[in-house]
């Protein structure tokens, strides 16, 4: 009994004054995911990786809008979104006080504009993602001239791209010589 009292005196106060004083968290603490709209390209990698479906993506093809949504109420703070984001648009912050008065405050939504396909005119991908791919192509050293035509090609939706390639293949008469080089003999449309 005496030892217990001694221990209690030794230890003193074991509790902290939180919430009346702020509390420190460790380096690398995984808190609320902070979203940087200016960096987001709307690729959806985070939504694919998110285990609890806290992050979801929607497409509104009427308005030409792709939206990024997060429900902080579902978030488990695993940080997979941060890990898979190619542009660093999501970083887990140290914030952990997430209680809200209104349920709507649990949600965050961002809208990104979609680009139309230059052939069929359908919306298919965000401008930012196309720009992101263009930058990558430039970085890997494509000359300006050839990348210009490639940039145009980037604005073709996957469906038209498949049609286009199939048509080229059908109309042109491609031969492969014995050295593995491709020769083009037909007319190209």
């Amino acid at each position, binding site marked *: 009994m005496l*030892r*217990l009292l001694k*221990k*209690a005196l030794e*230890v003193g106060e*074991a509790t902290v004054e939180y919430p009346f004083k702020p509390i420190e*968290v*460790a*380096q*690398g*603490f*995984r808190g609320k995911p902070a979203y940087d709209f200016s960096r987001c390209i709307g690729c959806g990698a985070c939504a694919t*990786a998110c*285990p*609890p479906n806290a992050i979801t993506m929607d497409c509104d093809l009427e308005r030409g809008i792709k939206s990024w949504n997060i429900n902080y109420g579902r978030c*488990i*703070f*695993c*940080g*997979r979104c941060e*890990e898979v984001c190619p542009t660093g648009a999501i970083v*887990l912050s140290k914030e952990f006080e997430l209680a809200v008065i209104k349920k709507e405050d649990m949600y965050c939504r961002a809208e990104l504009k979609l680009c139309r396909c230059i052939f069929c005119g359908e919306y298919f991908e965000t401008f930012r993602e196309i720009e992101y791919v263009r930058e990558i192509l430039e970085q890997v050293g494509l000359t300006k001239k050839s990348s210009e035509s490639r940039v145009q090609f980037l604005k073709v939706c996957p469906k038209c791209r498949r049609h286009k390639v199939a048509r080229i293949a059908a109309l042109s008469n491609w031969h492969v010589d014995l050295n593995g080089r491709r020769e083009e003999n037909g007319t190209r449309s």
Partner: protein
Amino acid sequence: MENEIKGQQDRKKYVRALYSKFGASILEEKWQTQDQVTLTVKLNTLPEIVEEAYYGQGGWLSNVIGNDERSINGHFAVYYVLSIEAEKDPNKNLWLTIKALVPADKPEFPSVTPRVPAAVWYEREVRDMFGLEPVGLPDARRLVLPDDWPDNLYPLRKDAMDYRFRPDPVAEEENYQFIGVEGEGIVEVPLGPLHITSDEPGHFRLYVDGEYIVDADYRLFYVHRGMEKLAENRMDYDQVNFLAERICGICGYAHSVAYASAVETANGIEVPPRAQYIRTILLELERLHSHLLNLGLAAHLVGFDAGFMHFFRVREKAMQMAEILTGSRKSYGMNLIGGVRRDILKEQRDQVLRLIAELRSELDDLLDMLVNTPNFISRTQGVGRLDPKVARDFSPVGPNIRGSGYTRDTRADHPYGAYDRVSWNVISKNGCDVLSRLLVRAEELYESFKIIERCLDAMPPGPVLVEGFTYKPGTYALGYVEAPRGEDVHWVMTGNKQKVYRWRSRASTYNNWPSLRYMFRGNTVSDAPLIVASIDPCYSCTERVTVVDVRKKKAKTIQYQELEQYCRERKYSPLKN
């Protein structure tokens, strides 16, 4: 290497012995790894062969899996997983799985329970989830499905239902039949069923004669979350790691590791050594906070509340270590298939070593105080006896069985992670009572300190995650971890579409419940909460208690606080008036 080859021969010995006894009944032999083998046997010989492996070869029942393989081979299947550890040598121990195909048009299989009692819960669950009838199973009640669930809807059949579907309830009231114990002066005491302080409901029914418990029954699974169905329908392999971690709020990381290693083993993915060490360190960290919590609770239940507060005070250091190493106090979120997501840096290592040193010296004082508290020994010694014979029949796990004289510990019997690369001891006690189980936990804390310190010192450099592998559909393997409460055994069969075909996770407490009934017998009502707490069942108390006097047909509800107070002070029995 030589050891391994020799071990392999030793392991084959068990299989050969089965062949010599049941030769014609064994249809197929398939080795998943050096120490995991699956034998497909004829359905009618299933009970005999499982019995032989269990009692004849020194096996323990670690898992039973039901599986809907109609799209693969036109049948249902049951897998009985036994851990053969008779020789107590990790090079000779074996995971033996006995598989039998169950015809789709006649979904019945002979029950193993009459021969091996440990199978009772598993077979009730297989019946609930797959509609496979264990012929000869003495217990005809549901285990997992609620009373208001429709008949003939078996959730885990692939064609049964969407994972989001919730059928309309078919019953208005609970109609679960508790076992009937009748006799002069026997009173039925229901404990529960809802609002457990640690969020996990369970309904106990104690049959008491005066103050003494003559028998007990319980109903659990009020919070079944359908995780297995969810995983196979909606999640990819990496995502299930995070789901598995949420099986338990205390020992979740153990589940995550068990799941990940099952997938890794099934697909032949080699986890880098450094990641193995990190997983080991985090698993021990989890054991620290879990055991400290249980010791604190035990102090609370014997009326030593100051001790309870102190255990929780020092437990905070374990939580801090987790925060430093993983970025989260609980639910570490560290696993991906192929390794871990964060490395341990030097600064973090130093912080953890310092906290361990502090924790160790604090614990010395606290344990000394706890054991020397006048009524601690008298309240726990000889109470809640888990007879070694009962233990042998029901395959309990963890400190529960190690308190009854056995040295079963998955970390030593089937080493995984870095457990065979650092030295440590398996703790075991012979008292078979609440005290022994508590002392096992107390001493294990010191082993955990040792393991963490040694792993931090011996960690090899290198990558912590491998990538770029492919998943092979249709392969399966076991993943196993010694969680704070005992072994967790997961079984994963891979599917196509980047999803698991079947994920079966068996938590440690699942194996500990069936023998609890025998631990209650002969003890007083006031010891009941203490006995439940001593198996550390992820929750330890019940909110309210109803007393039914069978003779007077009178029911009375007692607040949980009253029973808890009675447990602590043993005065003013609430049963008396």
